[in-house]
Structure formats: C-alpha cells, structure tokens
C-alpha cells in the first residue's frame, strides 16, 4: 500500500515489533458487583428497543381466541381423526388441511415435567417452577407446555391428572398465560 502515510505506517510497525504483544503488561481493572452498587465506578445502563410483534397464524390465532373465552381449542383431522393441541392448519400425518376446530376439556395428564430453581432470566427462586408437557384429554400424540402449580415437587408423578387453573375471565388477554397453571385434580 502506498499513499502519504506509507512511511509512517512502516515505522509504527517496526516499533510494534520491538515490543511484542506478549510483553505488554495487562491493564484490565477487575470489577465486582459491589463496586458498581456502591458507585465506586460510574456506569450507564441501557435498554435497547427490542419490541417485537409476532403473527400467530390462523390455527394459533384460533387457539388464543379460545383461551380468552376459557376454552382449550384443538384441531381435528378429518382423514385420520387425530386431534392435536395447540391446533395447526395441517395434519402432518395425512398432509390434509385441518380447519375443524374442536373444543377440548381443560383436563389432562402429565407427560413429562421438570423442576427448575431458576427462572428464564436465570434468577434463583425458592419456590421452583415446574414446566411440564400436558396431554389434554381427547388428544393423541400432542401436548403443550405449561406450568404445574399447587403441588410439592416430591408429589409430582408422570401420568398424574391435572386441570387448568384459569385467570379471571375479565383479565384474560388471549394469551397462553390466560391459564395460570395446571393443578392436580382427582379423576
């Protein structure tokens, strides 16, 4: 590379060569949370604009509309008769369009679960979160994720009967969180 700065660049490179990178003394300043909390160092906090909007699609749109009304909606395939929840627009077994929405009971059984002492943003909690896959009664081979509540972790069992615990009708927003959690129920 030529240009007016070519000579200057060369002399800088020679100087760098004398003092190889490995010989440069480290100059980092380790900081602890306490240093920041006690304002030993100045800090700036920043929350970028990370808003998003997500189109639910037809089937999930139908599902969320149902939740607002306190109903769990599935889709039924007219070809194989299988009912899945959350509903989808096609049957992945028959490759048929499935627009036959069916109202399902808000009861089911636990397919699998996990006991978590940290939240999604890694905050530690004393009362564990229990995410689980619930198989809603009347469906086959499909379940959806929700939390289990009102039960001690050592009482959890795969296959245990659960029922949806709903948010008050006036406060429902057409969201999966319109169901607070699934709680154990006797059959």
């Amino acid at each position, binding site marked *: 590379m030529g240009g007016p700065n070519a000579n200057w660049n060369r002399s*800088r490179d020679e*100087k*760098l060569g004398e*003092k190889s990178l490995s010989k440069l003394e480290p*100059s980092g*300043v380790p*900081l602890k949370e306490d240093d*920041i909390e006690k304002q030993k*160092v*100045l*800090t*700036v*906090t*920043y*929350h*970028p*604009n*990370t*808003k*998003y*909007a*997500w*189109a*639910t*699609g*037809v089937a999930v*749109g*139908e599902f*969320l*509309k149902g939740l607002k009304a306190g109903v769990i909606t599935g889709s039924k395939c007219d070809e194989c008769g299988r009912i899945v929840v959350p509903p989808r627009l096609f049957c992945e077994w028959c490759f048929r369009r499935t627009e036959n929405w069916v109202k399902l009971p808000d009861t089911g059984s636990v397919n699998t679960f996990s006991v978590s002492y940290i939240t999604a*943003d890694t905050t530690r909690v004393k009362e564990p979160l229990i995410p689980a896959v619930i198989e809603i009664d009347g469906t086959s081979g499909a379940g959806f994720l929700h939390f289990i509540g009102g039960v001690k972790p050592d009482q959890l069992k795969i296959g245990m009967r659960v029922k949806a615990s709903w948010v008050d009708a006036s406060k429902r927003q*057409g*969201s999966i969180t319109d169901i607070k959690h699934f709680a154990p129920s006797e059959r």
Partner: protein
Amino acid sequence: MNPTSSKVEGDFPVYFRYTAGIAGERFLREIKDNGKLVASRCVKCNLNYLPPRIYCERCMSKLEEYVEVANHGTVETVTTCTQDSDGKTFPEPVTVALVRFPLAHGGLIHKTKGQLAIGDNVRVVFKEKAKRIGSILDIEHFEKVA
C-alpha cells in the same frame, strides 16, 4: 390476513451496563467534580487525546498524563435531528455539533443551544454541580460565544 390470525407483542428484557474505562472514568469525574475537560497526553507524539484514552493510537504508548483542555472550541460540523435512534420523532428537533478544542486531538459531540454554524466559537456549558452525576449529560450543551 385471515381474520382469525392475531398478533402477539412483547419486549425482550435486554439490559446493558457500561463502565467508561480508566480514561473515560477520569474524564467524567473531572467534569462531575471540577467542571473541567481533560485530555490524555502522549508526550512522544505531542497529542492530547479528547476524549482521553489509555493508549496512543500512533505510537501505542500507555498514556497516564492528563491535561486540562479549554472549555471553549470551534464547531467542526453540525446537524439537526428530528428523530431518535429508534425513528421516533422528537417533540422538538435537536441540534448536535462536533466541537474541536484548542491543542486537543479529537473533539466532543453534544447538543447545542440554538442553531450553530460551522466555524462558530462555542463554550461548554456544564450543569450546576449538585446536579452532575458523572455522565456526558453533565454537559448541558454547547453555547455560542461572541
């Protein structure tokens, strides 16, 4: 779009916390405590870096000497913004200028009081001491001087 489709809105909880670094910390503390601008000096290259940094970008020397910079300078360039970085319209347009300072290498970008033109002489107006928090916003704006 099919009428049964709907949208879900949300916001990711992404929060950043920045520190200013050794030279940035010194710079901000001089503003906060003393209402002064400082640059870091490379004796070898005879350059005063503003805002200060801890290495000379020419000779790679570690810079540990700080010198006071005059709090008045010259407008190098100026622009008027009508939107913030998210594209949201400001209630009032905001004019920002890059100001260079005598004997300093670099410059500062900040809001201006009123409209300014390239070449205008300006001074740095600091917030009153009790209101300073150790931020670049401890500088209120650049103000034109006769």
